[in-house]
Each structure stands twice: as C-alpha cells, then as structure tokens.
C-alpha cells in the first residue's frame, strides 16, 4: 500500500498560505528542497535573522549555517526528506538556527527557539522540508525569572525556619535557668523571702513562664513548618482528654467571668492518635476562644462516629469578618491587629493547630459570624494506619 503522503506532509500548494500565516502568527517559515537548498525564507525570518530573503533563497541551508552539519539538526532535516516529522523542543536544544537574540534579551547569545521540522510533498511524493521556527526567548526569560523567584522564596523560607528554631532554642536554655533559680529563691532555699519579695518573685516567674510558652510555640511552628514534627500514636480516651483540657483552662475562664461548657458523649470514647498533639490543639483552640471572648461562654463539644472524632470549640466572641477568614490560619497573623496588641500572642496558635491536625490525619476548619461568635471544628480519624506503629 503506498504511503498516503497527503495526510502526513505539507503540500506545496499550501506553502503560500503558510508563509502568510507565519507573518500573522510571528513564526519563521523556511522551505527547503530535496538538497536542503532554501526555497522560501519568510519576512519574519528575514527580520529576525537580519538576513534578507533574497540572500537566503537559493542558498544551501547547511552552507549558510555550518554549525548544523553533522548534528541532530541535519539528521532531523534528512529524516523529513523520508517523511518523518521532528519536534524540536527548546528545553532540549535551545535553538535550531543560530541567529541573534531579540533586542532586550542580549544575555542569550542566540534567539531561543522551538521548531517543527516536517516533510513537504508535491504530486504525492515527499519533495522537501518545511521548518517552522518559533521565537521563545521572552517565554524562556520569564520562566527563568519565575524559577529564580521560587528558589529565592524557598531559600528564604528555609532560612527563616532554621533561624526560628535555633534562636528559640538559644532563648529557651537561659530562660529555663531563670525559672529554675526563681523556684529556688521562691522556695526559700537560699534564705528567707519577705512577703513583698515573694509577690515580686511570683510576677517575675509568671512572666518568664509565659515567655517560655511563647518560645515553645515558635519552636513547634518551626518544627512543623520544616516537616520535622512526628506523631507518636497511642490509644486514649478522647472524653478524658477533653475533661483535662477543661480543668486546665477553667481558672482562665473564671478570671474573665466566662462560662466554660463541656458537651461530651456518655462514657469513654477510645481513639488512636497522638495525645500530646491533640491536647495542644484543644488548648490552643479553647485558650484562643477564652482570650478573644469578653462576655458569654466558650463551649467544647465532643462527638464521635464509628470512624471519626469531632471536637468543636464555639465562642460568643467578636467573630471574624469574611475578608479575614482566608487569613486565620496564616502564620504570624491575628486578624484584628488592634486585638493583637491588646491580647498579645504570637499568632502561631492556629497555623500550628491546623498543621498538627493534618499531621494526625485530620482537618481543622472554621466558621464565624461577626458579632455572634466563632466555631473551630477539628475532625480526626478514630483509628489511623500510622506510618510508625503505635507506641507500646
């Protein structure tokens, strides 16, 4: 069966149309005969190469561009004479025809090109080669700038995490000594402490302990951000854990005159998770709710299905505007900067909580209505197939 050339090759009769299209689409169109002598060199090619058509037409392409001889370009041109098409991707070849880079892109020594090299036909026979050349210099420059920007951003992000981790560690060590010696002084280990001194020592210790908790939060964030935080799986009672969180934070609620409510299923609910991290998330959520709620209540609700645990922390605080909802889980962000100044904190509690939730195979979501309050919902699987086996 003869090869149906018409389906595979560009018929000579189509060449004028292609040459015209090349001008419109800003494509170089070069037609060669069986001896690879230039038959057509469109105006776009003439302008891009600064070689007039009159000079190119009739000239063997490999004589004009000697660098093409013996290489993949000549092989592709000769394959086209046998009916084969070649895709010439910029990424692998940089360019096909060694012509100057366009103005403004002189840092490339040549115009960066993609090309198609395909057969042409006349009267049902392959009789030459058509080369379509596309200038991709601008695109390549843009892609290089984008890659550089991504690399710079990744480098900066890693440097930030490493800085946070090392600085937090350096701060924690002397602070631990400060708190330790404070305990010794407060306990009268080095002599009697007057009542007024006792009060002052208590305040210093409270401030140091608060500072320590902030440093711990930054350290956790840096570890989670760097992907270095690991989960240690254990089986536990989710109801008992929720009660423990309520007992821990009840004094804070009483101090502000808020009701801290618990809504729990009857009896124990067993689940497999990392208890320390789950406790940390719930303390963050309930602690946050207490911090930002001035009147009313904070409610921790726990329920379970066969496969999932749901922890919901609702408050009657100021709520979060729709515009700010997209940023609540961004690190170092508190949606209302005036509140941040008033309430303090690192702005890391929620991002850390969300990332810990993901580490435990779950998700943390938020719903809020301005003026009515906010509800954070943590969903976790009741049993996980951990990469590391449950701690014995």
């Amino acid at each position, binding site marked *: *069966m003869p090869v149906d050339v018409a*389906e595979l090759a560009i018929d000579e009769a189509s060449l004028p149309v292609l040459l015209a299209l090349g001008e419109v689409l800003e494509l170089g169109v070069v037609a060669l005969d069986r001896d690879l002598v230039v038959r057509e060199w469109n105006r776009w090619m003439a302008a891009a190469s600064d070689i007039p058509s009159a000079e190119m037409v009739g000239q063997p392409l490999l004589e004009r561009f000697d660098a093409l001889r013996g290489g993949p370009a000549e092989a592709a041109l000769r394959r086209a004479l046998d009916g084969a*098409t070649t*895709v010439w*991707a910029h990424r692998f070849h940089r360019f096909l025809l060694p012509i100057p880079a366009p103005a403004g892109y002189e840092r490339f020594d040549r115009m960066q090109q993609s090309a198609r090299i*395909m057969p042409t036909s006349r009267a049902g026979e392959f009789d030459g080669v058509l080369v379509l050349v596309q200038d991709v210099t601008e695109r390549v420059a843009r*892609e290089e700038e984008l*890659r550089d920007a991504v690399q710079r951003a990744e480098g900066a992000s890693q440097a930030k995490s490493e800085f946070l981790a090392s600085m937090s560690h350096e701060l924690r060590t002397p602070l631990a000594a400060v708190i330790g010696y404070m305990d010794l002084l407060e306990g009268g280990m080095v002599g009697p402490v007057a009542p007024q001194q006792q009060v002052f020592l208590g305040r210093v210790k409270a401030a140091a302990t608060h500072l320590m908790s902030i440093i711990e939060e930054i350290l956790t964030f840096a570890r989670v951000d760097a992907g270095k935080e690991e989960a240690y799986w254990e089986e536990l009672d989710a109801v008992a854990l929720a009660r423990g969180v309520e007992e821990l934070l009840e004094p804070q609620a009483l101090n502000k005159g808020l009701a801290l409510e618990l809504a729990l299923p009857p009896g124990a609910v067993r689940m497999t998770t990392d208890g320390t991290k789950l406790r940390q998330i719930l303390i963050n959520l309930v602690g946050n709710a207490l911090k930002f709620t001035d009147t009313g209540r904070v409610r921790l609700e726990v329920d379970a299905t066969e496969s999932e645990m749901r922890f919901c922390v609702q408050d009657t605080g100021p709520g979060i505007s729709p515009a700010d909802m997209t940023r609540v889980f961004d690190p170092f962000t508190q949606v209302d900067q005036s509140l941040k100044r008033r309430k303090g904190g690192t702005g890391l509690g929620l991002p850390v909580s969300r990332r810990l939730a993901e580490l435990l195979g779950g998700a943390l979501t938020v719903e809020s209505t301005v003026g009515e309050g906010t509800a954070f919902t943590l969903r976790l699987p009741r049993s996980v197939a951990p990469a590391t086996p449950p701690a014995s």
Partner: protein
Amino acid sequence: MKIEDLDLDALTELFNIGLHRAAASLSELTGQRILVDLPRLWVCPIEETHARLTELLHGDLATVHQIFRGTVAGDAVLVLQYDAAARLAGLLTSGEVAVGGRLDQSAREVLAEIGNVILSSCLSSFGDMLRVAVSFSVPHIHVESLDGMLRSLQVGNEDLQFALLAATQFRLSEGEVGGYLIVAVGMSSLSIISDALASGAP
C-alpha cells in the same frame, strides 16, 4: 484473522526493540541514562479498550497523538496521567519545566518531543519488520479525558478496529513514571502485522 492467531511474544519483542531505540535517543537528548521498559502488552478490539483502560487511568490525561500511514496505517498515542506527565517532563529536564506540577507550554513541548521519539521509534520498528517505510504525522499533544482520547483515534474506515495496548515504564536515576502506548489499527493492518510476525520477523 483472529486475535488469538497473533504471536504476542514476537509482537512484544517488536515493541521492545522500538522502546530500546527510544530510550537510546532520549538518553542522548537529555544527557541522562533513561530506560523505557514494556511491562505488559494486550491486543483487543477497540471497543474493549475503554473497559481495560478505565481501571488504569483516571481524570485528566496528557496524550501525544501521531497518525501513521504506509503498509500499516493507524493512530499511535502515548498516554500518561496528567500528574505523571508533569513528573516525567520535570525528571527529563532536571525540574526546569512543569514547575508546581503544571503542564506549562515548555512542558508540553518537552512531552511532544518525547512522544515523537517514542512513537516514531516504535512505528519505525514496525516498518523495519515489514521492510517498508511507515510515515507519521506531526505529533499533537492534548490534555483530555479517556473518553475524549478514545473518540479522537483516527484509524480509518474499516469496520473492525483493534488496539495494541502497551504499558510502559520510564526509568530514570531520579525515579520512575508509568504510561501507556496505544497503537490503533484496522483489520487489514493487523493482518499484515500478524503475517509478518508469523513469517519469522523481527
């Protein structure tokens, strides 16, 4: 002829020869050692292709089509899952294209050239076996669904059409990516291939 008459071992060997050629060309092109394996080959009527592939391919696919004409004629397609295509383009260019897993314009060009090399190597090995020239069209890259890809196959007007389905595996030092080759042909082309295989080629 019946599908059962086809010498599948010989056909597998034919694909293997094509893929080895493709691997050598890709290694030369990219400057890194690349192996292209053929883990499995099926031949089935084209209407069964959907049922076979639907278990293996999901969501968007990146495909490179090349129609071929000559003593045997049909449509050859390299089929990759979208994410696998982005990964392959990234691996072959040391991460310079498909940044963020997106098949950007440069990644599509890279895939078009890879597809061109693989498909034309395999089709040439058919041509060598049959001792005739098999010519192929400009490759086209598409992002499409499995249904869309199967609908677009250009086999010709023959009533009975068949698909040679080959699972492939690209092995690079940095990782592996799986994909599929589909060579869709009509009954007359399949008969020619079958006869050539039976006569002792390749």
